[in-house]
């Protein structure tokens, strides 16, 4: 049932060329080189220190590893991380 609705949303966004992050409530991750990362549509921070950042989202936990990570801004729908980013992992 749930899967069917998801599929329908996917087809609609595909057909109408709507952005999927909005239609399907997905997080949008944008990286600028390896020094900045924006996550919009997140669902809260789970863990943060200078080496790791774990953010909750609709697709699971997004884990960002790196060094000297700093949170540039935290808003209810967007997180901006600055620092040297090594990896992104999505744990669902």
């Amino acid at each position, binding site marked *: 049932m749930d899967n069917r609705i998801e599929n329908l949303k996917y087809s609609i966004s595909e057909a109408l060329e709507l952005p999927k992050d909005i239609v399907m409530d997905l997080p949008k991750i944008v990286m600028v080189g390896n020094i900045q990362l924006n996550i919009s549509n997140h669902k*809260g*921070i789970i863990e943060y220190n*200078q080496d790791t950042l774990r953010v909750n989202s609709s697709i699971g936990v997004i884990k960002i590893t790196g060094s000297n990570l700093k*949170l*540039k801004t*935290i808003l*209810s729908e967007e997180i901006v991380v600055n620092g040297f980013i090594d990896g992104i992992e999505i744990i669902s």
Partner: protein
Amino acid sequence: MGTIKAWNFLKGYVIIKVEGLTLERFLNLAATNDIYLWDINRIDYTILEMKATIEGFRALKEIVNKVGCRVEIAEKKGLPFIIYKLRYRKMLGVGFILFFAIIILLSSIIWDIEINGNEKVKDEDILLLLEEEKIKNGIIKYKIDKDYIERLLLNEFDVLSFASVEIKGTKLIIELKERDLPPENIDEDIPVNIVASKKGIIEKVIARDGRPRVRKGDVVEKGDVLISGIFSDEYSENRILVHAEGEVFARTLYSYKVEEPIIKTIKEETGRVFERKELKIGKRGIQFIKGDIPFEDYIESTEEMKILNMNIDLPFKLLIHKYKEVETREIKQDIELIKNSNHIKAVEELNKQLPSDVEIISKDVKHYVRNNTVTTYVVIEVIEDIGVKHPIDN
């Protein structure tokens, strides 16, 4: 990004340190409550450092109570705090305001009056006239009525055909245009003689009115009457005065002398320069001397250092005296060459002197070579109208 920073500075913000165990919860709550936090950094396992606006900081208190952590302000930044501090340092604030007040005051005063474009009217006369109208150095520039000054100048000096008054910074610039005055027009009713304006030999006299006094071949001096406006009768005392009219053409000479030494000492720069700086405040100067000038022969030139490359007249100037070393050398020049160059120079000079409507009859060039100099005389003979009207005084 810069604008956001500037905005934050104007609004004021605090750098706070939050100490606790569930700091992620603190951040999430802040985000959901729409409290803007930025530049968050984990400096220790239990300590977060971040920036928050002043209102944001107040709103954080509720979250702090909920989460159970400690918040302390590490630093206050921004304009509101600076102003707050200034309350306890009133004199600093007063000085700040005074500083701007003085700048505004000084820049609204006329410090210099520049007059351009006048040849016949003297600067001093214009300045005197302006001074009578209380326009001089040191007045407030907003008080100046430009149109009034323009009209005043045009009325006072007939020679002026155009006047514009402009204020540039602290400078009052008066731009003038003078009209070419026609030779003094004497009313036709006034009886006049025609007199010689210079020495010459009369060539032709055309008297339209009045009685010619000279004939072809006469030598006249400056001031001699050429065409008389007085008709007098031998038998009666009656005199008839007329306005004499006519042209008197005469041969006149224009000469020019050029001297040029054959052996010439010229100064050649060796390229070595010695500099000395001077600070000039008003009319007094302070020279920064570093040793004597190491050259025997030198040319001195003075340059003014422009501050910030702006064209402002400051009461102080930085001058650089440059001493350029020179070598004197003697050069023997070719006599023929000197003669030619002298000739050209003299003719050029004479062309400047000659009135526009003359007829050149002859040109005479003479060179004399005498102890180390070549002297060249150029004499040009022309025919020109030498008659000038001159009122007859009774």
